[in-house]
Every structure is written in structure tokens, then in C-alpha cells.
């Protein structure tokens, strides 16, 4: 299986490719479409995943455990195909498709005129009978509610109260995939190809419609009551005029026109001639030309691409979880299909398959793209290297497509302006025609009044004439009698009376005859006036004809230009989307390399950190040694200094002594010189002199000692300074090594952070790609179950559905047992099963209603959007008579089977096969076993916890 990255492009560039494949089944064509030379290799869903998915999509509920087991052991190559066939033949398929159509068409609007049962029955019967979609749509667009047989189909109109704007919006959205609501009051501000004229063109089909209330007399026994029945009625249509709220004063005018189509040509009727049945009080009118009928025909005859593609896209979305155009009702130039060529193919094939929904769904179910897994592809790098080569190629294409889109956008602008001008030219003449028509209508009204006068006078005359003849006869007869009985006074009086009466009547008849003549004459004026009112219409029509012709041409040109613009813009944005995806894939290796590089960097930095630590630690001894050296140098210095001090002290003492002796010697010398003959004195002086000399020499010795000590101290000081310097250097070295460690550590931390950041970038890119791959169907979507599916799935998993089915089957068997012959007739059995399904559905539908209340979107809103609110979870956890009671052990359901099974492996199997339609993994089996083993005392409670847990898990809530 190849990826879609460039296949849409392939399709774009080579739309003819598909022409060759016309004969092949659609699923083969789809698969051919989804193969391309580059892209990711998506994995395929497992058998169990496939069966669960396709059962939920086709029947609205998961398979039973035994069906899963049988499917897994089946080794036939065509088992998926056979499973699809079996599901499509089941009564649940018709039910689920009918429900899907109901949600799509009515969006849970209230039943105001058609009951839900009638509507559902019509949908169900239509699906069961294989009624083609276009036929269903035609019935919806045509039924007016008058004929009981088709009244349910009228619900689309009747329960929207026949409101033209609401119908315009919803028909646009639901049947054509285009929400034109924003173009009601002006050209769409953001979407280039939604014009205000598109909205009003569609509105013109629906504007003549209205809700008509018919009073019916209903007899119940003796009682007669009046019942009001609402029907959809239609008057004769006229042009709609509108103006943009942004450009006031410029009027526009349109007849009925389908999106992308020219205004339809309507036959012209002179005023008063538009109806087969004219509107009157209590009368449902029938116009000679029904716009609604025209809409039904034009939309559904297979030629309307938007109609065809809309439903193909919706059915695709039903199966794949999202449309090629998504949201499915917002198909426009800025929200193009992910794959325009595929949408074209689907639309064409859906039409060529005669709008057979069942067959179409079957083809999708069998396609490979439907069978893709929701797991992300594992081998991204190979893909990425291929993608890189693709980028440049796509960029070249982007350039030429951008140019083409600019050209066609400009062409469209020009064509749009020309169209607006052509329209402006028609407006005065159209107004002239309006005036002429109004004058004609006015004249016709006068003529009708005059004719009525004549009719009235004639009636009166006839009344008198009817009486006149017998009275005249009676008068003549009485006159004859009087002549015979001349004396009879009474008779004469009576005859007189008759004669007078006859006279009176004759006069009256004469007067009335005159009146009739006068009134008949009075008609001449209005007749002439009417005749005179006709030429201005014809003149205006004649004038309008060429103008309309050029308008029509301008419109065609504009529409063609718009189609071209849309094609080019769609091709461009589709390509850009792919380009972006390819770029992101191509960028993955560098992101991954960044992680690898960052990881390597972490290793380098951590090694550096360790080395730095080692160096720092190694230096501790050196520093200690230097510190010891410093200490001993300090000691030596202190010792030397001590010795010096001692020497100095000794020396100073000697200096003092010597000084004192010297002074004494000098004094003795002076005294002996004064007393030269005193030998004692002289001797003493001599001795003192000698002593002083001796002391002087001793002082010299101590002086030398001091000098020696000073030199020693100086040397010790030098040694200490040297030691100090060495220590300072060592300390600096230690600090340097500490800093190295800190730096290396910071670098290591930073490197680790870089790994985390790179990983986050990579994860974000993959997450972004996952989104893109989901959009382009490389990966399966997680499809939230609808409220109906969720309820049915819980009923299936908890055995509630099976229990009700069996009860209904037994009931039916009792009421009308099947003969053996019937039991062997597949058609009979199918009908029998449909009957049971209907009964089961009816019994359980109240619960479905509860789920809709909690899990369903509001009425009149799109129903496909997912939301999760606390009140849902509260209902699931605590709701009275709901999930908790279905989970309780009963009737051999999964809870009971878990409680009873002695082998924990079997218990785990039961749990996973029944609730999630798949075998448990070994890890899951072990968990279940451990869970139950720890709860021997309250095993039933534990079993319920397990079932509840699985039912409320994300895996159960989403289909994938």
C-alpha cells in the first residue's frame, strides 16, 4: 500500500487515468487511486479490528464475541468480503443507514407535522427496498404531504415549517454540501466562490412555498371533529430582488438557479393565467409551472455534480470518519477536497451505480484505504528520504499552479463584473415588465369585476324570466275566465291582480334586460383596457429577450470562469497541502538526527564532565603537598626569625656593656692624665682600656652572629615566599579545575535538555503529521460512536440486545410459528428477522433516547461533532437503571461468564472478545487474572468493575 502524498496530484495531472479503469469495481479504482510512487507505508487493520470497524459502520453495533472468534479462525481469503455481504444483508444494516439518513436530513429537529415513527418507517422501507438516493431525494423535494403514501417524505419540508430561508440553508448544506448561509446578505466575505446570487438563486426555488393548513372533518362514531393537516403548498414564482448590505442601493434580481448552473428558463404566463388551481381561501393552489418540481428534477437527474458528490462524500465520511471535503457541508474553494480527483471519481461512480447506497458502501468497505490501521506507520525514515526528493518537484508544480490560479482568479473577476453589468442592463426593462404585468393584472381585475356584474345581472334577469311566463299564463287564463263569468267580482279582482303582477314583472324584465345590456356594454371598456394592457408586456418581453440572452451568456462565461478558478485554486491548495506534508516528512530525519546528535553530545559532555572531575580530584594531593610545604616554610621562617631576635638581643647587651666600659675607661684615662704619678690609677685606667678593647672585640663577634642570623632569616623568608607563590598557583589551578567541572556539568545538563527539546519537536512534528495523515486517509480516524451506536454497542456487549432479541423471537414464534418450509426459505427468514429486529428496536428505543439526551448534539445542529461533558460521564457512572444495571451479571452475559470461569485466561478472553471484539494481549490477560485473583472475596463486584472499565474506555468510545 502506498501513501496518498502525491496521488491527488497524480489524479489532478492525469484525470484521464480513471477513464481506463471505468470497468473495474469501485474499490479497485479507489485503491489504484491511493497508490503513488512516494509516501508512507500505512499498516492494515487486523482481522479483529476490521470486523469491529465494519460492523459498527454498517450495522451500528459491534460484532458478537462468537462472530469475532469465527472470523479469526476463518482462513478463507475472501472472508472480509463475505463478512461485508453478511452485514449488508442484516436487518441492522437497514436500521443503521436509516438512522444515519435521519440524522443527516433532520438533525434531530422536533417532529411537528410528521411523527418519528412514520418518518423512520419511510426511511427504513426505502433503504430495505434499495431505493436509490436520488429517488429518495426526489421524493423529499417533491412530496407535499397531501398523499398519505408520500407524506413521511415531506417531513424535510413540513418540519422546517416550509420556511424558505431555512430550507435554502439546509438544502444547500445537506443535499449539495454547501452552506450558503453567510452569503444570504452579501457575497461571502471570506469564500470567493459563494455569491449572494447563489443563495438567492436557490431561495428562488423555495420562496414560493409555504405551509398550507387544510381542515379535514374526521368522523369518530357519531362525532365529527375538525382536524388540521399541514401541507407544503406552492404559489407561482417571480424573480427575487436583493441587495448587498455592504453595497446598498444596487439591486440584483434572479430567477431560480442552482449553484453553478444558469438561471432556469420558465414559461411566461400573463397575469391570471399562472395557475391550474388558483389560490383561494382554504384552497391549495397548483401553479402551471412548479419551481419545486424543477428543483427536484434538476438536482436528482444525475447531471448535478454537486448533488452527486455531496452524498458520495457523506457516505465516504460515514465509513472513513471524515469526508474528502470536511466539514461535509463546507465545500468551497478555501476548503477543497483533500483529493479532488478522488471526489470526482466517487461522485461519478455513485451516479453511474444508480445512486445505490448499499453497493457504494460495500465498495468503500472493501477498499484498502478503509482497511488501514489507526497506528502510525513505523518506518518513517525510508519514507522521508523519498519525500525529500519530492519537495523540489512539487515546488515547481506549485509555481505553475500559483500562476494559473492567479490568471483564472483575474478572469473570474472580469467575468463577474461583466455579468453584473449585463444584469444591471436588464433591470430597467425587468421593472418595465413588472409594471406592465401589474397594469395587466389590474386591468384583468377590472374586467373580472365587470364580467361579474354582467353575470350577476343575468342571474337576476333569469330569475325574473322564470317567474314571468307562468304569471303571464295565469293572467291570460284569468282574463279568459273573467270574460266567461263577467259578474264574478272576486274573480275579476283576482284577474286584475294577475294582470298587474304580470305587468310588474314584464317591466322588471325589461329593466333587467336593459341592465344586462348596459353591463354587457360596460365590459367593452375593461376588455379593451385589458387588450391595451397586453402590448406593453409583449413590448417589454421583446426588449428583455436579447438582454436576457446576453445576461445568460455573461452568466455562462462567469460560471465557467468560476469553475476554472475553483479547479485551479483547488489544485493549488491541494498541492500545497501535499507539499506541506511532504516537507514535514522530509524534515523528520533532520529532526531525528538532531535527537541523535543531541544524545551523542550528551555522552561527550558527560565524559568531559567525568574527566574534569577526575582532574580536579587528582589535584587534591598536589594542593595538600603545597600546603604542607607552605606550612614548613612558615615554620622555618619563624625559627630563623627567633634566632635572629636572640642574636640581636645578645648583641645589643654587649653593645651596652662595651659602651659603659668605654665611658669608664675614657674617664679613667682623663683622671690618670691629671694625676700622672698615681700608678694605681694608671693601672686601673690601663685595665679599663684593655677591658674596653676586649669588649669591643666581643661586640664584633655578636655583630657577626646577628648578621649571620639575619641572613638565615632572610633566606627562610625567601623560601616562604617561594612556597607561598607555589601554593597560590596551586590554589588557582584547583579553582580552574573546579570551574572546568562546573562548566562541563552545565554543558551536560544543557545537552540533556536539548535532547528533551529535540524529542518534543520531533513528537510535535509526528503529531502534526498524524493529523495530516488522518486528513488524507493514510491513517484511520478515531470515529466517535453516535449516541445510537454507543447505546447499541453497550447493549451488544452486555448481552442486553441478544436477550431482547431472543425474547422477541420467542414471542413471535408463539404468535405465528414458522413452518419448516418457511424456515428453509431465505426470503421468509429475512422477513422474519426483520420483524424481530423491528420489535427489538421498539422495545429498546427508549434507552436510545436517553443516550441521545446525553450524547447527542442540539436539535438543528450538525450531529457529527464530538463533545465530551461531565454529565455524560456522570450518567455512565451513576445513571439509574442504565449502564450499572446492564453490567450486572444476568442471563449468561459477559459479567456472569467472567464470574463463573475458573480459568483466568478464559475470563480475560470473554471480557475482551465481548466488549472490545478482540483477543486480549498477554499483558492484558495477566492484568485480568491478577485483578480477579486479588478479589476472590467479591469476585462478582470485581467482574462488574472490569466490564464497566472497558465499556467506559477510550477504545470502546471510538470506532477505528
Amino acid at each position, binding site marked *: 500500500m502506498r501513501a496518498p502524498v502525491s496521488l491527488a496530484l497524480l489524479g489532478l495531472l492525469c484525470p484521464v487515468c480513471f477513464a481506463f479503469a471505468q470497468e473495474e469495481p469501485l474499490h479497485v479504482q479507489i485503491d489504484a487511486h491511493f497508490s503513488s510512487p512516494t509516501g508512507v507505508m500505512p499498516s492494515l487493520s487486523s482481522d479483529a479490528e476490521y470486523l469491529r470497524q465494519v460492523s459498527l459502520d454498517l450495522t451500528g453495533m459491534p460484532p458478537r464475541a462468537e462472530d469475532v472468534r469465527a472470523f479469526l479462525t476463518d482462513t478463507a481469503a475472501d472472508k472480509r468480503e463475505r463478512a461485508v455481504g453478511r452485514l449488508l444483508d442484516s436487518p441492522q444494516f437497514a436500521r443503521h443507514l436509516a438512522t444515519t439518513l435521519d440524522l443527516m436530513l433532520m438533525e434531530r429537529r422536533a417532529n411537528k407535522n410528521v411523527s418519528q415513527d412514520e418518518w423512520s418507517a419511510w426511511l427504513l422501507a426505502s433503504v430495505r427496498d434499495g431505493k436509490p438516493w436520488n429517488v429518495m431525494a426526489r421524493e423529499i423535494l417533491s412530496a407535499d404531504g397531501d398523499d398519505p403514501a408520500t407524506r413521511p417524505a415531506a417531513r424535510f419540508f413540513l418540519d422546517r415549517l416550509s420556511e424558505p430561508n431555512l430550507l435554502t440553508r439546509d438544502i444547500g448544506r445537506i443535499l449539495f454540501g454547501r452552506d450558503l448561509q453567510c452569503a444570504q446578505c452579501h457575497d461571502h466575505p471570506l469564500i470567493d466562490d459563494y455569491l449572494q446570487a447563489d443563495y438567492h438563486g436557490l431561495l428562488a426555488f423555495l420562496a414560493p412555498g409555504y405551509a398550507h393548513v387544510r381542515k379535514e372533518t374526521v368522523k369518530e362514531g357519531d362525532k365529527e371533529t375538525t382536524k388540521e393537516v399541514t401541507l407544503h403548498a406552492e404559489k407561482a414564482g417571480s424573480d427575487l430582488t436583493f441587495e448587498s448590505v455592504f453595497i446598498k442601493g444596487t439591486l440584483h434580481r434572479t430567477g431560480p438557479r442552482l449553484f453553478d448552473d444558469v438561471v432556469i428558463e420558465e414559461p411566461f404566463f400573463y397575469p391570471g393565467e399562472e395557475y391550474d388551481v388558483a389560490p383561494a381561501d382554504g384552497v391549495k393552489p397548483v401553479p402551471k409551472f412548479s419551481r419545486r418540481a424543477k428543483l427536484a428534477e434538476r438536482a436528482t437527474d444525475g447531471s448535478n455534480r454537486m448533488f452527486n458528490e455531496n452524498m458520495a462524500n457523506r457516505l465516504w465520511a460515514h465509513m472513513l470518519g*471524515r469526508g474528502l471535503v470536511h466539514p461535509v457541508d463546507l465545500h468551497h474553494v478555501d476548503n477543497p477536497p483533500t483529493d479532488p480527483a478522488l471526489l470526482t471519481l466517487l461522485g461519478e461512480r455513485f451516479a453511474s451505480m444508480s445512486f445505490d447506497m448499499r453497493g457504494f458502501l460495500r465498495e468503500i468497505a472493501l477498499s484498502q484505504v478503509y482497511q488501514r490501521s489507526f497506528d502510525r506507520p513505523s518506518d518513517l525514515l525510508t519514507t522521508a528520504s523519498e519525500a525529500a526528493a519530492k519537495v523540489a518537484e512539487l515546488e515547481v508544480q506549485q509555481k505553475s499552479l500559483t500562476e494559473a490560479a492567479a490568471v483564472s482568479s483575474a478572469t473570474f473577476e472580469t467575468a463577474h463584473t461583466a455579468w453584473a453589468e449585463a444584469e444591471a442592463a436588464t433591470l430597467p426593462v425587468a421593472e418595465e415588465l413588472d409594471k406592465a404585468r401589474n397594469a395587466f393584472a389590474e386591468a384583468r381585475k377590472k374586467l373580472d369585476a365587470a364580467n361579474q356584474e354582467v353575470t350577476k345581472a343575468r342571474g337576476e334577469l333569469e330569475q325574473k324570466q322564470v317567474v314571468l311566463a307562468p304569471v303571464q299564463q295565469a293572467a291570460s287564463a284569468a282574463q279568459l275566465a273573467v270574460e266567461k263569468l263577467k259578474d264574478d267580482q272576486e274573480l275579476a279582482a283576482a284577474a286584475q291582480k294577475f294582470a298587474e303582477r304580470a305587468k310588474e314583472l314584464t317591466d322588471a324584465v325589461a329593466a333587467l334586460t336593459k341592465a344586462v345590456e348596459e353591463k354587457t356594454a360596460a365590459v367593452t371598456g375593461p376588455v379593451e383596457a385589458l387588450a391595451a394592457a397586453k402590448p406593453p408586456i409583449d413590448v417589454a418581453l421583446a426588449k428583455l429577450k436579447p438582454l436576457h440572452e446576453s445576461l445568460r451568456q455573461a452568466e455562462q462565461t462567469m460560471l465557467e470562469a468560476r469553475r476554472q478558478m475553483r479547479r485551479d485554486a483547488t489544485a493549488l491548495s491541494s498541492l500545497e497541502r501535499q507539499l506541506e506534508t511532504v516537507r514535514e516528512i522530509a524534515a523528520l530525519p533532520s529532526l531525528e538526527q538532531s535527537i541523535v546528535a543531541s544524545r551523542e553530545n550528551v555522552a561527550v559532555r558527560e565524559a568531559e564532565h567525568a574527566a574534569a572531575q577526575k582532574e580536579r580530584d587528582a589535584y587534591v594531593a598536589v594542593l595538600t603537598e603545597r600546603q604542607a610545604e607552605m606550612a614548613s616554610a612558615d615554620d622555618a621562617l619563624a625559627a630563623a626569625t627567633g634566632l635572629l631576635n636572640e642574636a640581636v638581643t645578645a648583641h645589643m647587651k654587649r653593645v651596652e656593656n662595651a659602651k659603659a666600659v668605654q665611658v669608664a675607661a675614657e674617664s679613667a684615662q682623663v683622671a690618670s692624665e691629671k694625676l700622672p704619678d698615681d700608678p694605681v690609677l694608671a693601672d686601673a685606667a690601663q685595665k679599663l682600656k684593655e677591658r674596653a678593647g676586649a669588649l669591643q672585640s666581643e661586640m664584633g663577634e655578636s655583630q657577626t652572629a646577628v648578621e649571620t642570623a639575619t641572613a638565615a632569616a632572610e633566606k627562610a623568608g625567601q623560601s616562604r615566599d617561594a612556597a607561598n607563590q607555589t601554593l597560590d598557583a596551586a590554589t588557582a589551578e584547583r579553582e580552574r579545575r573546579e570551574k572546568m567541572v562546573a562548566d562541563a556539568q552545565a554543558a551536560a545538563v544543557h545537552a540533556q535538555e536539548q535532547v528533551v527539546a529535540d524529542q518534543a519537536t520531533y513528537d510535535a512534528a509526528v503529531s502534526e503529521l498524524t493529523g495530516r495523515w488522518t486528513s488524507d486517509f493514510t491513517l484511520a480516524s478515531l470515529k466517535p460512536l453516535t449516541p445510537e451506536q454507543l447505546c447499541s454497542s453497550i447493549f451488544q456487549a452486555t448481552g442486553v440486545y441478544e436477550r431482547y432479541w431472543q425474547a422477541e423471537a420467542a414471542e413471535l414464534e408463539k404468535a405465528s410459528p414458522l413452518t419448516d418450509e418457511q424456515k428453509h426459505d431465505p426470503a421468509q427468514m429475512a422477513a422474519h428477522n426483520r420483524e424481530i429486529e423491528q420489535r427489538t428496536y421498539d422495545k429498546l428505543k427508549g434507552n436510545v433516547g436517553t443516550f441521545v439526551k446525553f450524547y447527542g448534539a442540539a*436539535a438543528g445542529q450538525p450531529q457529527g*461533532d464530538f463533545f*465530551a461533558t461531565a454529565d455524560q*460521564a*456522570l450518567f455512565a457512572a451513576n445513571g*439509574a437503571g442504565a449502564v*450499572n444495571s446492564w453490567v450486572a451479571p444476568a442471563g449468561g452475559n459477559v459479567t456472569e461468564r467472567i464470574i463463573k470461569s475458573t480459568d483466568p485466561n478464559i475470563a480475560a478472553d470473554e471480557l475482551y472478545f465481548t466488549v472490545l471484539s478482540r483477543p486480549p494481549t498477554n499483558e492484558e490477560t495477566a492484568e485480568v487474572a491478577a485483578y480477579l485473583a486479588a478479589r476472590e472475596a467479591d469476585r462478582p463486584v470485581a467482574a462488574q468493575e472490569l466490564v464497566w472499565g472497558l465499556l467506559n474506555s477510550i477504545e470502546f468510545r471510538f470506532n477505528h
Partner: protein
Amino acid sequence: MTIRYACNSSEHGMARRSFLGTMAAAGTGAITGGLGAFARSAVSEQLIREQKRIVIWDMHGGLSQLESWDPKPGTDTGGPFRSIPTSVPGIGICELLPRTAQQMHHLCLVRGVNTSEDDHGKGRYKVLTGRPQTPAANNPEIGAVAAKALMPEDYALPGHILITPGGGGGRSNDAAYLGPKYASVQLGNGKPPENTVLPDTITVESDAARQDFRRHLNERFLSRRRTAVTDAYGYSYEQALQLMQHRDVFDVSKEPAKDHERYGKHDLGRHALLARRMLEMGTPVVKLSHSNYDTHHENFNFHIEQLGELDRAFSCFVEDLADRGMLESTLIIMFSEFGRTPRINTRYGRDHWSHAWSVLMAGCRMPRGATYGKTNDNGTEVIEGQVDHANLFHTYLQAVGVDSTASFDIEGREVPLADPSSHPIEEILA
């Protein structure tokens, strides 16, 4: 509300982050994120103060402006009641609201309202959505719009509360295209939301065990594929558990007896007190209502009775919010679907009247003790400062700091928050 998991919107990213944060916390069984309101830490107190809130008093049926905010005593339309002075010199209101008169310095009266719609349903639609009712469009009500604009992404409790006079619970249908996340959760007659109590058959331990098992299953699944929708689904269960745990948030009986006494021992008093409690807990939008003002008969007697309840509850409510500093962050709105006719009918009633009536606002960017707009002497027409539902709708949003001219992105459709052809009442926005 839709979660577009395949999109690249920043909303996705944000929601995702906050989900991850709360999920991680939930796994540990601690009080989870997004419940700052209950953790009561300093930070959460601050958050609560800064959280802008709206409380709507919806006077069902049509409160008479002449018997409340715009009395016209002594005229042909005035009726029997006097106008009394208020705490703001120069502003007088009807004597049926003596306590509220003393709170006038907090209030702003818009007296020139003309909504041109005298039908209950259509009038309500206009006032609640700021737009006229058209068949093809279904618009969200002010509460839902405000909830979407004001509710923190990871807010775990219902952010839009509707206290109804009776009925059960459940989710309303007032959010239209904004989706059920912003639809109001009803507290029927002030009772807590439905299904917030475990059934008797399930023990607390068993519930904890099954929830743990569920979380465990989810973690394994999420390692295969994780998107905004899977996160939202898992998160909804944590929200539910928080709601059950903090069920007493909805229990007005936890408020002091003294306050019950002050607010009045009737439904409205109780509901107003509950509204105060919810706002204090950080609920962004609360709506309560008072029925029924549709006084075609005996307008005056009905208003004596109804406004007696209203005056008591509303004056306490305003006073308390002001005292607690909450008026800075809370916008009070009081409206009806319309007012009542100046003309008094033969049954001493007043009929539907949308052409000259009053709406009250207070707090946030509203001026304190002010009036805007004027009706003529006997209240039959607006003669100054006329505004309509669309102007008011813009103003409510602007008052709480929301750009009412912005648009929501609804599945790729740009939808303006308020009628783009209208504008707010700039004159009263401080």
C-alpha cells in the same frame, strides 16, 4: 463544542496541554488541576478574583419598568406607587424597592431600552441572543457566549449554571453552535446536578477501582494514538469525579443561617444565595430567574408581592458582592423579555411593552450609581439614549472585557460573537 483534532489551531494546543496537566494529576489521586477554585490556595484566590463573571437575573414574563427602575408617579400612566430617593442623589426608583434603593450607588440603570418585540418567545430570543429570531439561524444565548469567552480551558466544573425555579437537572439547549460544553447545566430548584451521587449498589471503593482500571486502559490506548478528542473523553470522567467530590459546592444549606435569613426564606432568596456561592467558587456564568411578572391582571398587587421578594434578595446580593470586592470582576444584569405598557388596562393590569423599558447592570466596567437614557414624562417613548437588544448584548460582553466585535471559529466558519451591524453602548463603558 467540536474538537478539531486534525487541525493546527492554538486552541488545540492549549487544550491539549491543560488536559495533560490535569490527567497527570488525576492519576495520582490528588486534587486535580483546573480545580483551583476548591484548592483554596493563595494562587487560586487570586485567580478567582481575576476571573470575570456574569450573573443574570431573568425576570420572567416582563417586569414593569414603571413599578421598578423608571417610575412615573403622578402621571396618567404612573399607577399608585411613589418614587423614592436612593443612595444616589437625583435618582429615584419605585417605592416597592426600598432596600435596593440603598444599593443604587453600585448600580447602573439603562432606561431607554427599545427592543421592538412584544411577543414573549421572540422577545426573549432577542434579549438573550442579541439578535432577532430568524428561521434559518439558531444563535447561542448570552450565558453560553460568555461561558465560552470567560471559562478557563481546563475548568473542571460546569462553567454555565442555570438555577431554575423547578424541574429536574440536565443540560439546556442554549449554546446552539457553540456546543454542549457551553450549554447551561440546570440546577432544578437549586438542587445539585443530576447523577452526582453513586448508586447504593456501588461502593466508593468499587467505584475507585473501576475508575482506576479505566484510566489504566486509557493510558495504554493513548500510547498508540492520542488526540484532543481522546483527551477530552478521558477528561470528562475526571470532571465528573470532581463534581461528585465537590457536590457541596451546589449545597446552599452550607451558607450561614444568618444569610438565609437576610436573603429571605423563599425560592428566590435561596437561589440568590446559591448564585452568590457559585460565583464565589469561581463559576463564570450563573443565571437565575424569578417568575412571573406577566401581569395582565392586577399588575400592582402582583408587583407588591413579587418585588417584596426581589428587593430583599437582590439588595443583599448586591451588597454582599460589593462588600466582598466581587463587583470589580462580576457583572450583574437584570432583564426581562420586555417591560409593561404605560397604559393601565381595565383589569388593573399592564400588557406587553418593548418600546420603552429598562435594563439594570452593575459591576465590572459599568459606572456606579448612574443612569443612561431617558423616557418621556409618562414613559410612553424613549427620548434620549435609545438602545436595543443588540447594543445591550455587545455591552454585556464588553463590560467583562470581551471584544464583542470578534468572531468565534466554529469548524472553519467565522461567527461573530454579537450582531456585527450593531455596537456597544460606549458611553457607559468605563
